[in-house]
């Protein structure tokens, strides 16, 4: 894994905290968003329903007042004086008809009240309303189709800064339209009233009245640009206004060419939802913080005894058995059980260690005592045995020197045997001492040039054995880390053996060589001498073990034992290969890295 961050690197405490923190955060996020969306939807639905209701109510309200006005005007249009006046082209009943028209002027919003004939020529005009609304009457009637015996409110027209709408009623004579009562009413609502009204239906809400053909839009104070396109009635319409996203509903006003529209800002509706979300977030963060702290405390509760255990286990693993560290974990859960088990184990280890330690100390003392005895023994051998032996040897020689002429042949033979045996015993003692002293000797390790060493040993030995022409072959001998004095002793013993045991051959041949292995180097000394029976190969390296008699070949039987002891000390191996009367090969291996 090339990834630098890995969960495995975190401690249990960190991991637990992270896990709990993640769980808490995701729970809060999921809960928060789910609630947010359902609340938002509910809020929007409620708001939408509310404005639907409001638009319906307001259109109904407007429709009812329009109906009242049209009823009034229809009543005027059906007055006999009005009918007769139109019929006569304004000649008859003029005064009565005018009185009827004047009655329509109930307030100042009625700006124009006229009686038209069927060609739309004014026949009579109320003096109370004197504003001339400059709108093409023909177009008005074309749009607001008023059938016989009916009355209608037309669409709103903008004249200058003011807005007017027509209220038209037909004048009928014998089922035929002969003229119209044509009134203009001003659309005027006080801004304060509008503000109060919008406040009532909700802050940020807008109320519009518009013509159904979309030709004019007003906020009841002044004409305004169309805020949106009308696609359908009753269905919510979404559009983007100056205050952001808006939702609107539209309803036609009955008996008129109008419609009402109420729009509300989504932001206002969602204000509550957003503040809910804000609180959820604050609450969530707070909860997470508490969660992190709780998780940290909880995992600490778990990991503290664990790290206590780890410390104690480390102390034991580092070999501190002498002063056991018991863990004080006072709890009843799994960790408590683990701690108890650990403490029992530590006590057991400590106990075992103490036993072992005592045993080792006891054995060491015993060994030291035995070693001291051995040392005393070897000193005694070296000093006390040598002295009488020297006397035996010395007096025999003195006897031989001083009384040789008085001894017969048998006496001379006997004295000769005493002398040679004393010499042999001296050699045995010296070899034995060398062998036992080796056990005490410390190894020193340096790089030994085996090639040079072999050459010098061969030369040294050939000096002592001049009586025969030995053919000695020295192959390539790689250097090795070893104790130079001891390795010299090994080569000396093996080579002198090779010379000794091949001395009776006509053409004695000796070969020294090596084999290289991965971890060790094997050196060997081969000769074409008397060899040995492989059946006795196991005895070769024992102390005082000999395969030949003293008459055949002189020797003490210590040489090969010494070789084995030296190579053992170097962590090497010794072995031999031989065949009777053919020759022998002695091998020893030394590790390439000597552990001293």
């Amino acid at each position, binding site marked *: 894994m090339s990834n630098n961050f890995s969960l495995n690197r975190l401690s249990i405490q960190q991991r637990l905290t992270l896990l709990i923190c993640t769980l808490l955060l995701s729970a809060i996020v999921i809960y928060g968003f789910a609630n947010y969306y359902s609340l938002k939807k509910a809020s929007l639905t409620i708001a939408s329903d509310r404005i639907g209701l409001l638009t319906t109510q307001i259109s109904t309200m407007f429709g009812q007042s329009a109906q009242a006005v049209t009823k009034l005007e229809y009543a005027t249009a059906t007055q006999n004086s009005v009918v007769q006046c139109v019929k006569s082209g304004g000649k008859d009943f003029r005064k009565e008809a005018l009185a009827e028209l004047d009655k329509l002027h109930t307030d100042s919003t009625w700006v124009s009240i006229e009686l038209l004939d069927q060609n739309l020529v004014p026949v009579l005009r109320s003096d109370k309303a004197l504003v001339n609304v400059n709108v093409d009457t023909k177009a008005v009637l074309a749009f607001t189709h008023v059938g016989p015996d009916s009355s209608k409110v037309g669409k709103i027209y903008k004249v200058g800064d003011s807005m007017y709408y027509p209220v038209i009623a037909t004048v009928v004579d014998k089922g035929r339209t002969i003229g119209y009562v044509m009134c203009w009413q001003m659309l005027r609502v006080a801004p304060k009233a509008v503000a109060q009204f919008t406040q009532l239906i909700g802050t940020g809400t807008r109320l519009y009245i518009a013509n159904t053909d979309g030709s004019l839009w007003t906020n009841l104070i002044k004409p305004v640009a169309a805020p949106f396109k009308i696609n359908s009635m009753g269905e919510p319409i979404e559009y983007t206004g100056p205050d952001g996203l808006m939702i609107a509903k539209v309803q036609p006003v009955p008996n008129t060419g109008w419609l009402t529209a109420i729009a509300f800002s989504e932001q206002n509706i969602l204000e509550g939802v957003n503040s809910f979300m804000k609180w959820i977030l604050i609450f969530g963060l707070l909860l997470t913080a508490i969660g992190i702290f709780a998780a940290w405390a909880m995992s600490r509760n778990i990991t503290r005894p664990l790290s206590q255990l780890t410390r104690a286990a480390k102390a034991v693993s580092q070999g501190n058995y002498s002063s056991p560290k018991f863990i004080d974990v006072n709890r009843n859960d799994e960790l408590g059980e683990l701690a108890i088990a650990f403490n029992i184990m530590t006590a057991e280890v400590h106990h075992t260690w103490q036993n072992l330690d005592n045993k080792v100390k006891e054995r060491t003392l015993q060994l030291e005592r035995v070693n001291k005895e051995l040392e005393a023994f070897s*000193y005694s051998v*070296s*000093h*006390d045995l*040598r*002295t*009488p*032996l*020297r*006397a035996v*040897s*010395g*007096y*025999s*020689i*003195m006897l031989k020197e001083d009384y040789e002429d008085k001894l017969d042949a048998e006496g001379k033979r006997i004295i000769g045997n005493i002398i040679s045996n*004393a*010499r042999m*015993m*001296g*050699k045995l*003692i*010296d070899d034995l*001492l060398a062998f036992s*002293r080796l056990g005490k000797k410390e190894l020193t390790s340096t790089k030994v040039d085996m090639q040079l060493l072999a050459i010098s040993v061969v030369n040294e030995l050939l000096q002592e054995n001049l009586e025969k022409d030995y053919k000695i072959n020295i192959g390539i001998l790689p250097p090795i880390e070893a104790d130079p004095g001891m390795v010299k002793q090994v080569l000396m013993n093996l080579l002198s053996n090779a010379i000794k045991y091949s001395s009776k051959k006509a053409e004695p041949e000796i070969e020294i060589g090596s084999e290289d292995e991965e971890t060790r180097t094997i050196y060997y000394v081969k000769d074409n001498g008397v060899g040995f029976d492989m059946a006795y190969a196991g005895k070769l390296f024992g102390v005082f073990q000999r395969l030949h008699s003293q008459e055949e070949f002189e020797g003490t039987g210590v040489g090969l034992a010494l070789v084995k002891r030296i190579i053992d000390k170097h962590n090497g191996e010794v072995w031999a290969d031989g065949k009777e009367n053919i020759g022998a090969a002695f091998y020893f291996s030394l590790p390439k890295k000597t552990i001293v």
Partner: protein
Amino acid sequence: MNDDRVEILLVEDNPHDAEMTIRALKKSNLANRLIHVKDGAEALDFIFSRGVFSERSTDNKPKVILLDIKMPKVDGIEVLRQIKSNENTKTIPVVIMTSSKEEQDIITSYNLGVNSYVVKPVDFEGFAKAVSELGFYWLITNQYTD
């Protein structure tokens, strides 16, 4: 040169070793002025002219002392220590002759200033050879200056 002058002081408790040493030295004509004492205490008496040797002049120093190590009463190491720590006697050559090949004995002897250390060979021929070589070296080759 004084005729009484002792040339070799042999300190040896073992009579056989002493006999053989004297015989070897005699063969080489080196035993003419040899004194043999049987332990360290006697040796010290002789060297420092005490006890039975109180009549002796301390100026009459031996040319060489052949000293055994393992002896009753006072051992050779102690004798060596006293000889080498005395201004008067420290110039006398001392040769340790012992059966012991113990490294500790050898190291102690050299630390105390022994002039030679010889391990007595077990066989008589070797022993005789070693003794006569020693005698020649210390009595003839190495001239003793007073």
